[in-house]
């Protein structure tokens, strides 16, 4: 499992770069590094379905970021500024939240099964009767499209809503009168 730990360190370093770098295109590329590391980690924990989806989705995410940044600006003018009084209150709240979160995580990790030996109370049934009941050899497919197909239906609705939202926000139809009234 040493390769997984190396990958996790690379992921955390790329996340710091993505958050702190001054050029926004570089930040988007560093976010891509995090995403591809996640894809390799999915392969290492035996989840090839997730790895395929994550790789392709990550490519498209970087393309979307590049499409937006090339049409607007890719310089982050807020990085080098000194700390202003406005930022004090959010910082205190964030520090408080991190402490609280740490306590809850410490409690929760004690309850969680150790890494590498899951409980598998529901999944044992899926593994035992999955192929006989659904006829699909890929058990992940049999879970998302047979045992838990309502999840997939909900996902389709959320995706549809997001696409309609993007088109509504971006398109220019019906905004002309708005501009005329302002000017």
């Amino acid at each position, binding site marked *: 499992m040493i390769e997984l730990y190396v990958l996790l360190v690379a992921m955390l370093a790329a996340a710091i770069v993505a958050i702190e770098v001054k050029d926004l295109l570089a930040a988007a590329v560093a976010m891509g590094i995090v995403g591809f590391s996640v894809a390799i980690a999915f392969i290492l924990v035996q989840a*090839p*379905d997730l*790895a*395929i*989806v994550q790789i*392709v*989705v990550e*490519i*498209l995410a970087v*393309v*979307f970021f590049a*499409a*937006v940044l090339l*049409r607007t600006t890719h310089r982050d003018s807020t990085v080098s500024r000194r700390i202003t009084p406005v930022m004090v209150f959010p910082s205190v709240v964030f520090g408080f939240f991190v402490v609280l979160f740490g306590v809850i995580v410490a409690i929760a990790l004690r309850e969680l099964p150790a890494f590498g030996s899951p409980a598998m109370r529901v999944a044992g049934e899926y593994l035992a009767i999955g*192929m006989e*009941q*659904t*006829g*699909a*050899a*890929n058990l*992940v*497919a*049999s879970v*998302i*499209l*047979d045992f838990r*197909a*309502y999840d*997939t*239906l909900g996902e*389709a609705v959320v*995706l*549809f809503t*997001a*696409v309609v939202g*993007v*088109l509504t926000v*971006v*398109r*220019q139809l019906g905004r002309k009168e708005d501009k005329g009234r302002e000017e």
Partner: protein
Amino acid sequence: MRGMSLIVQTVARLVAGMLFLFGCYIVLHGHLTPGGGFAGGVLIAAAYILVSLAFGSVENVEQHRYTFSSVFESMGGLGFVLLGLMGYVAGLDFLNNLWADYGTPLRLVSGGIIPLANVAISMKVGAGLFGIFLALGASRFVMKD
């Protein structure tokens, strides 16, 4: 949006068809091998996005692509809901896996409605993401500066 150089166009011409076919393969074998409707749909969208980026487009073509993507996304969503409603027609639950024992396991013809639902989801995901790309990157929605 503008097209790219001759090298990019040549490579895109070679690769885009294979990318589309690979997406179709992943969708159709989603119940046997890793992959499925989500991965295949995103790959198909990536093939269309590659062609759009490499060859560019004028406003008229973009209008057509936009209509095409919205029609296909609606078809995918409707197809999935109709597959679910067929359970009612058969007198069972919504999204019941009909014909689950038709065909032999580990062959392409197996899995009941799972391959069909994969196809519907791939149409929905692919067309939806291609529509998002058109909205974010195309000249029809050009910003004034």
